[in-house]
């Protein structure tokens, strides 16, 4: 977010000041949308990476998809099938999230 906000030209904020806008209005009306447009793909991919990284919390015992896979394979001893299916689920989740983010970007921010 900071990188996106820094990409805004100083000329834009000065034009806003010249128009008599308050700093909060300048941020909301002038800086926010171009910053979001600039960082939106990176932000979306970070979110997907975070969702994938959440599989690691199974190591400290938190209940999540990977922990469920662990318990299933511990009960049924079908290690490969369980993990393969759960990997497929994560893949579907990440593709789904990416599609949702792309749609939101197109609708709200006009990112193609």
């Amino acid at each position, binding site marked *: 977010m900071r990188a996106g906000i820094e990409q805004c030209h100083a000329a834009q904020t000065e034009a806003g000041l010249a128009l008599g806008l308050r700093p909060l209005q300048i941020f909301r009306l002038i800086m926010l949308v171009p910053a979001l447009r600039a960082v939106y793909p990176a932000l979306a991919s970070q979110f997907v990476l975070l969702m994938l990284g959440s599989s690691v919390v199974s*190591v400290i015992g938190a209940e999540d998809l*990977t922990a469920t*896979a662990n318990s299933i394979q511990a009960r049924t001893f079908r290690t*490969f099938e369980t993990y393969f299916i759960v*990997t497929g689920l994560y893949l579907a989740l990440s593709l789904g999230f990416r599609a949702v983010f792309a749609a939101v970007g197109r609708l709200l921010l006009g990112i193609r």
Partner: protein
Amino acid sequence: MLSAVAFAGGGVLGLIAAILRTAPVAPLRWVASAYVQLIQGTPLLLQLFVLYFGANLVGIRVDAWSAAALGLSLYTGAFLGEIWRGAIEAVPVSQWEAARSLGLGYGLQLLLIVIPQTVRFRDSAHHRLPGPGYQEHLTRLDHWLRGVDPDRPAGQQRHLSAIACIRDCGDDVFRAVLALSIAAQRLNGALICRSAGPSRPGLAPTQRFRSPSRARPGSIMTIVYRTLATGTENGRAPLVFVEDHSRLEAARFRSEPGDNVEDVPVLSAAGLHSDRAGGKTGAGWLASGERWDSRDGPVTPVKRVRDQ
């Protein structure tokens, strides 16, 4: 060793993936795109599980180390391939056309003209976006969570892993989570310091990193509980506690006049619980490598010194 192999393998795979992603032949692009989407779309932990159990199911005998090396190489290769693909695509088309007009084929165009110019974009990508240092960081973080100390050979892994230390925390879940998060943050910072190199003059104080010899990934969590020598008067043995397992022998603690800390054994505190009197019970490792048990006598941390 594992991270070195993963880094090298990932570099090779990433280069191949980047070249295939920008190939003029469409099926090659699809293959590389499918590889990157698959690896980037699934968690690393599950990729390792699938590789290890799947290979053994099909009949190929792989040991854990080989499966981990292969999995980490694939993972690193996918991310590096995307970064380098961006760098290849950032080279202007005029360079390709100039190389074509010299009569070079596609391979030579790529090798002689385009890839040397990607260094410009790769460097900027490495500084602003996650680059190879970040990938190495991720593999080292996974490495650390699995409890393998990369500086020691495989037969001399005598420290408790972070996972075992969290299991030892028992009911103290909050402490376990806190220890893990702090340790991960410190490891993160240490690895960033390490990948950034030695400190350079002229930077702001917040940017001036410590020298790499201090910012070692193992020297995380050197919060030290110290007991003064007077602890023996209460019938409790004096011990110096270090939260970090990997650097017991390099624990730095502040000594004050009147403390004879030279002959005080250093104990890792991560496997201990607090009892009602404020002492410590449990078991852990001494710096000399011996096992210490609190049934030898409870200890009282009198003073806590935070290092770094």
